[in-house]
């Protein structure tokens, strides 16, 4: 029985990407794999969500923007938002054709496969938020490169074809738990038609690992 969910729109946000004037080398593929076991599906949660529960609300469709290289941005940019907690959702207009619909699969931390249809140009964070996918704590900073909660793991061949990663994304990805050679932040990866059928893995978190260890100890 679905509860009435109050959707709060997160209106168009600019992704403030501060380009470092220093390190110009784009790092790709030169990443130490911290733990291959992160790719393994984790143990099923003891308690599965009973409801869709709380939602981050819907993110209005926006293009994946990259701020111009020569931006003399101050230390941090204020994303332009008008957020009102009393606003009801207004739906992203549905396309008549399926032409620019892309199917994306998210393998959740408990191994469950969540499937969503995305619009070309949407970021994977938008997909998760707009489709109310049940991924705990995803997208805390709402796509402003101020956290690493939208961390996703890609298959190698898909990863290689993604748009180049910026220093700003790398800076935040560096703080993500369970970083792999094919990790990216979902808010920085935009869906393309060629990605139809894409499967991404939601990484396990340190708390899950610790819990597994504890349970393992107790069962001995």
């Amino acid at each position, binding site marked *: 029985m679905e509860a009435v969910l109050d959707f*709060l729109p997160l209106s168009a946000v600019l992704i403030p990407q501060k380009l470092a004037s220093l390190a110009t080398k784009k790092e790709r593929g030169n990443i130490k794999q911290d733990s291959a076991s992160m790719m393994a599906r984790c143990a099923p949660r003891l308690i599965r969500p009973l409801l869709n529960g709380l939602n981050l609300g819907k993110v209005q469709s926006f293009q994946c923007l990259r701020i111009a290289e020569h931006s003399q941005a*101050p230390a941090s940019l204020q994303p332009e938002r008008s957020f009102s907690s009393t606003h009801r959702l207004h739906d992203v207009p549905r396309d008549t054709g399926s032409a620019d619909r892309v199917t994306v699969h998210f393998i959740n931390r408990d191994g469950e496969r969540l499937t969503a249809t995305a619009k070309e140009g949407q970021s994977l964070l938008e997909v998760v938020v707009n489709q109310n996918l049940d991924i705990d704590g995803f997208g*805390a900073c709402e796509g*402003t490169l101020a956290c690493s909660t939208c961390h996703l793991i890609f298959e190698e061949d898909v990863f290689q074809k993604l748009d180049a990663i910026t220093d700003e994304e790398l800076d935040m990805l560096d703080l993500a738990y369970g970083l792999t050679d094919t990790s990216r932040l979902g808010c920085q990866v935009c869906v393309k038609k060629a990605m139809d059928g894409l499967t991404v893995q939601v990484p396990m978190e*340190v708390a899950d690992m610790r819990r597994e260890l504890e349970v393992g100890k107790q069962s001995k």
Partner: protein
Amino acid sequence: MGSSCGRVCWKWRSPLRRLAGFSRLLSTAALAPQICVVGSGPAGFYTTQHLLKHHRLARVDIYEKLPVPFGLVRFGVAPDHPEVKNVINSFTQTAHSDRCSYYGNVTIGKDVTVKELQQAYHAVVLSYGAEDNRILGIPGENLSGVYSARAFVGWYNGLPENRDLKPDLSSETAVVLGQGNVALDVARVLLSPLDILRKTDITEGSLAAIACSKVKRVWLVGRRGPLQVAFTIKELREMINLPGTRPLLAPADFTGLGDVIKDVPRPRKRLTELMVKSALEKPGEKEAGRWASATKEWGLKFQRSPLEVLSAADGKQARGIRIAVTRLEGSGESARAVPTGEVEELECGLILSSIGYRSLPLDSAIPFDPKLGIIPNSLGRVQGEPGLYCSGWVKRGPTGVIITTMNDSFDTAQSVLEDLQTGVLNLSSSKEGFKSVRSILHSRGVHPVTFSDWEKIDAAEVARGKLAGKPREKIVDPQEMLQLISH
């Protein structure tokens, strides 16, 4: 333990629910867990979020000592980092849930005890964070001009207890002891162009003081070396690019480091590479121009440990700091700083100690480890206290960013959910929740501030801010807050 999902177990636990209608009437009131969370920062809200999401009936009440919620998101995150505060939107949504209530202006341990909360609720989660700081423990620490970074951050972020700090910003050189993100934050706020600061939610009073500041140079002093800095790359990059400033990085500190870091994990490697590049490589044309015309500067000093704050002739004011030169034993994250016997002096009139926050015991009845500064626990279950849990900094120690606390809070919530499922938390005894707390508070003359009260304060702050071109103008006097909502 079976891996059966919660849905199945839930049906098992309540056979009455199988009888339609009738069962709903009987069972709901008795089986709705009443949970209370102490502290309305990220730990409190993320724990609440997880509980509400994964248990269909649970009710969660969040208590907060201040009238206003959100803890360090409001009072710790730097004013020029508004994106980090976006989590407030998620917390606001949680607070609006019909199974969640917020009660501000209630000090647990004083207005109501933890034992009284345990009588009113099935489970109590302590998420009250770290309100104090570690002390240096050196002579001169209490001289005028010496402050904890925590108090300084509280001052510019409008934390009521720090509003009268009146830090002395009249000397040219400031020394920050510590090399974490908080150290970078205070250095950046001290040196940022006013044009940037005046558009943030920094308080009016502190902005005015900073506008008159004479501070031109900030040293971040650490006991160990460049490979042990605790700040992270995004914040360092921001500092290096801070308009109107130039970095002072001694090449000798960084020569040869490039080879040492070849095989360290990527985060440490990139962070070190950025420092090495800034210290050793010739800057690009634009940067060179910026550095040449800079009027302010900041630098990193390594392997220096504070021994004593030196006073001016009047004996009351700090004029400098005596520091011991150290060497490193071991390497990497676990390297230890050992004194060499050599001693130096640094002239400065402002000293900010940024060596860590610290939790305090809330209530004498609650176990607390003073050495580690945490509540002893296992996966968030307080040791020896069934029904009592903890999350966030008071559980793990005062380090990490919001995602760290988020995961930790989900972890504690998971422990609560498990205990509900397995019957460790006995739901057959019904609890009154806020109903009984309300009468206790009333009898003690305490008036809780509700979330919609907070929204009035919020609206007032935003309106005042608009007049000044800021996202908000924080109200720093709790009395003014209470008057606004006619308490």
